[in-house]
């Protein structure tokens, strides 16, 4: 018994020490990963929408034609409903369960098309451009897909953002002036205020982890 406890304690002593060095860090270019997502093949940069999805821009003529079609179907189902009901109200031996079953089916078809008409109406009013929320829903699912690829044990850092900026405007390079006259600090200070712009010349600055990244 003592031997077993002893072995267990030894095991835990090693386990604790090893667990502390288990944390690893990695970096990922999140934007590039998103661009590699299969859904990006459907992305249309002109419209800013994803083709073959509910976010796609639809020509207004097509929307109007779908509206007309849905309205026609509603009218047809409505007439069928009236016929069935009229027949059953005028016939004493109508099978009531069957009548209600058929009426329910027709009502559901009408309801589906009325819902479609609401969506199509909004789409027509927006000139065939669906709301932005549709694009955001697709973007959200892409982001979740990409994040699922990250290991749970790593701390994953995103690459640092880099934006275009024009270079700093110096009449003479203050760093050079400083090397000519090291005792004068004002020039170097002026130069240091612009290091965020100067740094943009170097792509490596986007890396969040410079040494020690787990590949």
């Amino acid at each position, binding site marked *: 018994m003592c031997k077993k406890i002893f072995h267990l304690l030894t095991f835990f002593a*090693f386990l604790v*020490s090893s667990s502390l060095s288990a944390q690893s860090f990695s970096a990922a270019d999140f934007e590039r990963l998103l661009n590699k997502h299969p859904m990006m093949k459907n992305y249309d940069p002109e419209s800013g929408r994803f083709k073959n999805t509910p976010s796609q821009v639809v020509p207004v003529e097509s929307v109007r034609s779908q509206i007309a079609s849905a309205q026609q179907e509603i009218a047809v189902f409505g007439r069928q409903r009236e016929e069935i009901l009229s027949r059953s109200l005028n016939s004493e031996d109508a099978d009531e369960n069957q009548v209600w079953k058929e009426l329910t089916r027709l009502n559901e078809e009408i309801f589906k098309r009325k819902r479609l008409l609401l969506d199509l109406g909004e789409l027509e009013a927006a000139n065939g451009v669906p709301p932005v929320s549709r694009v955001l829903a697709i973007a959200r699912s892409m982001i979740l897909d990409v994040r699922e690829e990250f290991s749970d044990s790593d701390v994953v850092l995103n690459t640092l953002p880099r934006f275009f900026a024009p270079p*700093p405007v110096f009449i003479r390079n203050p760093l050079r002036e400083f090397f000519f006259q090291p005792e004068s600090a*004002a020039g*170097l200070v002026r130069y240091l205020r612009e*290091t965020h712009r100067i*740094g943009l010349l*170097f792509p*490596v600055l986007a890396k969040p982890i410079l*040494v020690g990244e787990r590949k």
Partner: protein
Amino acid sequence: MKFGKRLLFFITIFALSAASMAFAQMRIAKVDLGLVASIHPQMALFDFDRMGFFKVAPGLSQEQFEAEVNKLRSSPPTQNWSKVSADLRGKIEAFEKQKAALIAQMSGAELSTGKRVEKKLEEISREEEKIRGQLSDIEYQQNCPDLTAPAETRKILDHIEKELMTELKALADEQKYDLVLNSSITVPINYPQRYKAGPQYGLGIPGIDFSLFYSFLANRDHVLVSDETPNSRNLINWLELIRYPDAMNLLPLKPYPMVLKGGDDISAALVERIYLKHKIDRKVIESVHSILAIVKDHDQRFDTDLESLVAPK
């Protein structure tokens, strides 16, 4: 006795594990790589106006430097640039003619022909783009004989980057750092111009409704007293509006680096290592160190007015 031996063994294991726990803790450093890259000795030769390096040896005095640059500007060209650029312009003209002919083919053509022609046009455009790039480089070299050509400039920048990373890895190994994080700021700082007096004074961004935040703080509705919307809604609406980039630029905040706290700052050590490698005078290194320390102190105290502290008295 047996129990005593086992206890001693366990205590030894525990002590070793405890020691290894101390060793297993990660040593983390940070470097403002943007700053270190900016003050790399070779960057003193960079002309930010024309975006090239002066083709001059480092370490010259001011007079020597200016003399060399003037010599470069007045020396005859090493190549017959006029002939080269004329050749390239000729190629561009030929491309334009080809494109015009192809476009003429497209009108009234069938779909398959149209697609083929479109593909051909794309190929020609790509080639033309390349030639225009070469022409632009030639014109640059003609106009800036004292500076490196664009391809050479890119090589030098690449070399600076590689050198920084090599020296950083060596420094991290020597000082036993497991992880070095990048604490550069990679976005342009945009202090709001509109705070200054003058023609731009008073120009802000329309649509940011101050009454939302004002009402929230006052805990009453200043627009519609009868509105029963909860007051916290005003704060939520305000926060949504103020998050837009244009609005953020008006706030008195500068962007902060990824590493806000912690980690050993080895930027100065990396600068010293690079400067020693480039045989920069010790006096210069000390001067750079003291200025970097002042900059760091200002950053930590969120003080943006650096120049007044180092301006000549």
